[in-house]
């Protein structure tokens, strides 16, 4: 099956993973900027990371025929130091013209603090200024419900067009909040802290298959770069027609991502 992996952190994965997902049918991959597992110490560290996302990873993916796209930001876990976060954000415009940069992401909240929210809102201003789509990270576990509500309120206050914004990592208690507000929703197939394939399909069956995608968010943690295609196989077990499976794993992400003129793939 052909599919798009709309959220994967390949800087943390091996080249063999690129080969595996290419063999599984991945026709495009998107990599939002994220937390490295530790706080970076300098703006230069982020400069190097953005070069990795815009130069090195596209070249590595290309060896396996996978177009690689990216989203740039300073992630919410490193946004608590607002002064530092603003210094990092000041270099983001230097990279926005790179051919694989689709938009601003994954911005959002982590512990739902005032500084995180301020930096989130300033990222949204950058996206609006440069007319870019937005990819949003919602907090983990007990912080997700509150964080999702704060994010949706902030987006409404900023006048963001919901059609250009995807709110990721939704679960059963937040999918309705996001979709009812008109935004796109992402379901993340990730052990322990997010959705299992069975639950993701439950969410599709409950909330419908419009404005929704699924991703692996594979990174340096225990995670599975094949999670999307495994969920597609689970959908077959649940008797979902192939056309619906293709819509969720290929057509929906293509529709959202194609709002960036840079997102061009052969499929």
């Amino acid at each position, binding site marked *: 099956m052909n599919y798009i992996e709309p959220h994967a952190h390949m800087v943390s994965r091996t080249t063999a993973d690129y080969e595996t997902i290419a063999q599984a049918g991945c026709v495009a991959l998107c990599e939002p900027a994220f937390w490295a597992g530790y706080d970076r110490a300098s703006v230069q560290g982020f400069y190097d990371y953005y070069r990795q996302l815009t130069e090195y990873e596209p070249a590595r993916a290309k060896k396996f025929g996978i177009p690689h796209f990216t989203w740039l930001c300073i992630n919410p876990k490193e946004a*608590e130091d607002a002064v530092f976060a603003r210094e990092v954000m000041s270099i983001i415009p230097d990279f926005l013209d790179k051919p694989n940069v689709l938009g601003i992401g994954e911005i959002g909240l982590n512990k739902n603090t005032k500084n995180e929210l301020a930096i989130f809102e300033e990222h949204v201003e950058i996206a609006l200024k440069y007319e870019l789509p937005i990819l949003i990270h919602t907090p983990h576990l007990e912080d997700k419900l509150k964080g999702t509500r704060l994010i949706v309120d902030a987006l409404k206050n900023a006048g963001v067009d919901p059609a250009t914004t995807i709110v990721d990592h939704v679960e*059963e208690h937040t999918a309705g909040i996001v979709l009812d507000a008109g935004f796109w929703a992402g379901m993340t197939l990730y052990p322990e802290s997010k959705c299992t394939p069975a639950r993701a399909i439950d969410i599709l069956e409950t909330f419908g298959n419009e404005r929704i995608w699924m991703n692996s968010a594979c990174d340096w943690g225990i995670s599975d770069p094949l999670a999307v295609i495994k969920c597609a196989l689970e959908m077959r077990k*649940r008797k979902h027609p192939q056309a619906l499976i293709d819509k969720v794993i290929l057509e929906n992400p293509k529709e959202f991502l194609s709002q960036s003129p840079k997102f061009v793939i052969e499929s």
Partner: protein
Amino acid sequence: MPTKKEILDLYFMDARYKLIDIAAFLDRVDRHDGDADFRHPAFLKAMEAMQSPAEGKSRAQSVLESLSDHSDEPVEAATIQFAFGAPTDSQ
């Protein structure tokens, strides 16, 4: 769409082993020394939410909401970067 029986065929054994694992987890907490923290009562409360979901809400939604922070103002500052899985005021 699968029938209820087909859903049971697909998922019963998986859910059965997870249910037993939860029971064994609770036994393990009971059996060991020391005091539990806020996560233990939060877990028990979430199990009640599963059995008696709020009107109009699914069991999964009720469990997730039971294990969520329900305050609505941003906090002053972060003291940790991770999440516990249950709100710290669950006790």
